[in-house]
């Protein structure tokens, strides 16, 4: 447990990223590809939070319980993640909107068939 503990978070979030990447690279379905992108996003966000995490730290709020900044996790990555989540959601919304339009035009979500633009 103690051996793994410092890096287990990293393993977890990079696994998420890799799973997402795998889905994007392999799955021919546009919706699945978007899910893959979202998985990657989640992994990345998790990674950012992990970067600022301190073992046993508290939330970065100056409360009665914790007055010392040493015992708090780093608040900056959390702020970043909030922004990144917002961006991720807007990309997701746009992606889904485009997917609907693509389906309207091609009648399929199979990326092997959506090849109107090439060369």
């Amino acid at each position, binding site marked *: 447990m103690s051996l793994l503990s410092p890096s287990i978070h990293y393993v977890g979030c990079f696994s998420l990223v890799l799973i997402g990447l795998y889905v994007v*690279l392999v799955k021919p379905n546009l919706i699945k590809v978007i899910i893959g992108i979202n998985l990657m996003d989640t992994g990345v966000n998790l990674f950012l939070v992990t970067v600022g995490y301190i073992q046993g730290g508290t939330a970065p709020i100056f409360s009665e319980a914790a007055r010392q900044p040493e015992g708090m996790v780093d608040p900056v990555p959390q702020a970043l993640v909030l922004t990144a989540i917002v961006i991720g959601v807007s990309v997701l919304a746009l992606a889904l909107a485009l997917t609907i339009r693509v389906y309207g035009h091609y009648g399929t979500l199979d990326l*092997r068939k*959506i090849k109107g*633009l090439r*060369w």
Partner: protein
Amino acid sequence: MGAGAILTVALAGAGLSYPLGLLSAKVRNVFATAVSALLVCLVAAAYGRSGEHVYYSGFLGLDLILRTDALAWFFAITVSLVGCLSVVFSLRYVRGREKVSFYYFALLLVNAAMLGIVFSGDLLSFFIFWEVMSWAAYLLISYNRGRALYAGLKYIVMSIIGSCAMLVGLLSLYAAHDTLVISELAERIGSRGTGFLLGVLVAFSIGFGIKSAMVPLHTWLPDAHSEAPSPFSAVLSGILIKMGIYGFVLVMYALVGLKLLLGLRGAWVSFNSVLCWLGAIGILIPTFIAVLQTDAKRLLAWSSIGQIGYIILGMGFATSLGLTGALFHTFNHAVFKALLFLAVGAVEYRTGGVRDLNELGGLIKRMPVTFACALVGGLGLIGVPLTSGFVSKWLIYKTLIAEGHPFLALAALVGTWGAILYVYKLLHNMFLGQLPEKYAHLEAAPFTMRLPLVVCGSIIILFGILPGIPLGAVGPIVGSLGLEPVQATLTGFGPQVGPLNMVSIFAAAALAVLAVLLVLRASAAPRRVAQEDSYAAGSPVPAGRYHHTVRFYDPLEGATIGYLRDWADEFYTRVAGGARGGFDGLRRIYTGDVRNYVMYIVCLLAFLIFVQMVWHIW
């Protein structure tokens, strides 16, 4: 001062001709003619003044300089003269066609850019004017549409290749010597090794060789010259390709200098001997390809390549005789090739665009002045005594003999035989023989077309009899390039060179002609026969057989046509076709499947990380 004013007039003239054309065609024509005539006058008036001044300081940190010296003036007068004649010729030639204002704009711009090239005192402005000349010429070559588009594209692509090579050459000089001013470069040029210098010269030679149509870089020329409007063909063949020669002389003699030049050798040949051999090949093969042509302008185009061969041959020797001959031949070729192209243009104009030699004939009866001038031009091209072409070719032969190069001399000689063949074919098939029925009511060429022809013809004969006038201009150039000027008298050469007195030859020739006339007068008068009044084996000859122009040199053609192909052109076409196919294949990497694209992204990332992980090089 002089060069700046001349260039301003030239460029302003080009710029103004377009808006003027929108107002009134007549004003524009008068204006264009006046500007080009004014340029001739200005160049003639300021001839010989030497000077150097900065006209634009700080273009990309470099000063642009105008410089005038003997070499510049010699080319400037040639450019402005031929330019002016072609503008005068154009007055009728392009009347009533589309985009005439644009035509004048481009024509004047080409002329202005060429003046800019010869007046440039630094290689950057040389290059800028060179490029302006290239694209303006490309627009003009494309002017006739149809097949001209292909010709124009071929021209500009080759010309961009050449200018890329030149750019590399001149900026290597800049990187090494920190200046592009020709006079400063000439002082510092020796400080780097000969290998570097050889590389730079080769880069320049590609640029100049393409522009001057040196074999094997000539392949744009036959298409471009034959498809361009005829007055512009005259400019192209007369002076534009000579800019390549100017560049060669400038870089080889003014910039690198004689002493360094002769020391430039690769593994087993020296730079200038390679040039000489390329010149000789350029005389031999294109001349005989010209003999096979049936398109009058294509024939002249191939002949231009051959004549450029003579010039390069003379120039490559780096002797004062050779250089004098080359420069004089440059001028001569400009005049007589302009004349011939204009003559063909006049015929083309009157016959409604016919320049197929198999369909013309007998036009001497309809266009006598044009014929007379074309005859003079043709004789000059062959190098018959009493034309200026004789003197320049004589100088080049003299060089070959004096330097002891029998093979090159043979090539030059055989080239002259070929020239006789194709000039005869050209003149005969257009002007002699039977007049086809459809041309029976042709009018003579209009005055504005005859005038340039007559001017060119007179120049050829005048300088043929009194070669001392142009040689007097060539002498200082040769002197300024570090060679001993050739001792020329007004009528020829003194005993140091080998005595030649054109006036005595003229007298002898005049006597001979007189004698022939007398003999002819004394003999029985010929009887005129009507065209249909001729019989073969007792039956009348069908009308179609009168005109013996189809397959003109049949046995010769049969023997040579298999060999005289444009190998270089075929090679380039094949390369271009292959490249095109390759490009199309390459496009397939954009498969249209977005997952492949993501794969590319991931691959780059993986590659970066992998390399660092394994080799730690970054």
